[in-house]
Structure formats: structure tokens, C-alpha cells
């Protein structure tokens, strides 16, 4: 396939990023904000072509919330392997980046960057739905380069 048609198809493919949420020991605040971003008519992300999918194998952009607790660490890493390439990882909230208020707990297995590469951070506790959409836009730009 020539370079021109490759980039044209890439640009079309970039208009359909599918999102998959992983809750790695979150307090659920960021998960509630993700639910509002997706399902409230006010913040409709389906305009950007995004859609929540039910299976990690269908995912393009991973939305990770929560500190990586020790109990869930192996499962999250196994789940990360199941998502097919190319993929983009987005950390929602401050917990995946730094641990937030749970930083010094014995149950926290460390910031995510020690285990899987993260591409976009969206700080906030929890971040506003508009902030999530803004971060998602940056993630979609990154993903458009990779597909």
C-alpha cells in the first residue's frame, strides 16, 4: 500500500478509538466521572467516535484509575497484555501517577510507571468530565500516530 493511502486510512481509523476502563484499586470517584463523561448527554464522547467496549480485546485506549494495589497488580498486568497493539494508556486522576493520598499505604504496589508505560496523565481528584475529554483528545492524537 502506498504511503498516501496508508495515511488516509490511518486518518479514518483514528476516528474510532474504543475505550476500556481498568479500575486498579480506585476509590471509584474517577470511575463515576468516567461514567458521567460517557453517558450523560452533556458530555457526549460518542461525537468523537469513542465507545466503551466490554472486552479488553476490543480496546484501543486504556483508561486506568486507582493506585495499583498489591492485590490487583498481577491481574492488571495480565489484562494489559490482553489489549492488542497499538494502544494508548491514559491515567485518570492523581492516583495512578503518584498515589494521591494513599501514597504511603502498605497496600500500594507503587506508581504505574514502574510496571506499564503510561502515555497521558489527567490529574484531578477526580478530574472534571471536561478535563477527561481534554486528556482524551491528547490521547486520540497520540493514537492516531500509532494506528
Amino acid at each position, binding site marked *: 500500500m502506498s504511503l498516501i493511502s496508508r495515511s488516509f486510512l490511518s486518518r479514518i481509523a483514528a476516528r474510532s478509538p474504543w475505550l476500556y476502563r481498568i479500575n486498579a484499586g480506585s476509590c471509584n470517584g474517577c470511575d463515576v466521572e468516567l461514567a458521567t463523561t460517557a453517558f450523560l*448527554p*452533556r*458530555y*457526549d464522547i460518542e*461525537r*468523537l467516535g469513542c465507545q466503551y467496549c466490554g472486552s479488553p480485546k476490543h480496546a484501543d485506549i486504556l483508561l486506568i484509575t486507582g493506585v495499583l494495589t498489591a492485590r490487583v497488580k498481577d491481574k492488571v498486568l495480565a489484562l494489559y497484555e490482553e489489549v492488542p497493539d497499538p494502544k494508548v494508556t491514559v491515567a485518570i486522576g*492523581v492516583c495512578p*501517577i*503518584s*498515589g*494521591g*493520598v494513599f*501514597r*504511603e499505604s502498605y497496600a500500594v504496589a507503587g506508581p504505574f*510507571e514502574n510496571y506499564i*508505560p*503510561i*502515555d*497521558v*496523565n*489527567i*490529574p*484531578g*481528584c477526580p*478530574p*472534571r468530565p*471536561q*478535563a*477527561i*475529554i*481534554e*486528556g482524551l*483528545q*491528547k490521547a486520540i492524537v*497520540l493514537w492516531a500516530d500509532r494506528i
Partner: protein
Amino acid sequence: MWYLPVLLKNLIEGPATESFPFSEPRTPATTRGRMSFSAEDCALCRMCARVCPAGAIQFGKVDGGQSFTLWHNSCVFCGLCAHYCDSKALKPIPDWHLSHTTDATYDMVEEGQVFAQKCGGCGRQKMPVSEALAHKLYPEIEDKAEIAALRTLCPSCRKSRLATRDAAA
């Protein structure tokens, strides 16, 4: 069947979707976004670092003063630091545009440097006193010039100035 009037109403009223990200978002003026630090007001009491639940505030030493660092990626936006800051040096501002790619992770800081000042009375080193702090310390003093004068003095010079004023009054 019973849902049809609702669907018809929805069709007539049209989408309720905010047009962000295709236009400017609507941010109310009292939105609690990130913290902003103004170095000229800080009195270096360090109460903010003590009460921060996430440990996002750190102080360090620089020549002639101290440095203040607040990591946005650790801050949980609780507002305790602003609540306990008597000098009103830390304030939440409605800026929530904080998302970034990971190569900019360590750039997401609010920094400032607070330098000690020379006392106007005895010439020794003193910590700055902001206007809000001065009003809190001396709520009974209404005279603006007096407050401004007291702000330039160290604690002992302030004590002697107030004592002479009370003796004169």
C-alpha cells in the same frame, strides 16, 4: 409504549450536549481547580505542608530564603492548604486544564521562592508578612498606613511599636 412521549419530547428539545471540545467550556468562577502560590505573600509558616494529606507540598533551601514546591500530580485539590494559610498565599483558581503527556509529568509544579526581608526597624532578617496576615494579626487596627508600617517590621519591633502606641493612646 409508555416511553414514546418522552422520546418525542427529546427529539423536539434537541441535544443537550455541551459543545466542548469544539468550543470553549463553561467554567463557573468558583470552580476549584489547581492551587496557585504567590511568593510575596508567603510567611513560611509551613502549615500547608503539615496539613496536606497527599504530601504534595515541599519546602527546600535556597540562597537567602526557601523554595516552595507543589506537585499538581499529587495534589488532591482538597483545599486544606488554602484553608489553613493565614497569609492567603495559596488560593485555588479555576484552572482545570491540567492534562498532559507523560514526558511533561515533572513539569506540573507550582513553584515559588520566598526570600527573607530586612526589618525596617532593627535591620535583622524577617519573614514577609502579607496584607491578609497583617489584618488577621491585628483585626482592631483599621488604619491602612499603620498596617503597611507594621508589615515592614520584625516581630520584636512590631511589639515595641504597638506598645508605644498603646502607651501614647
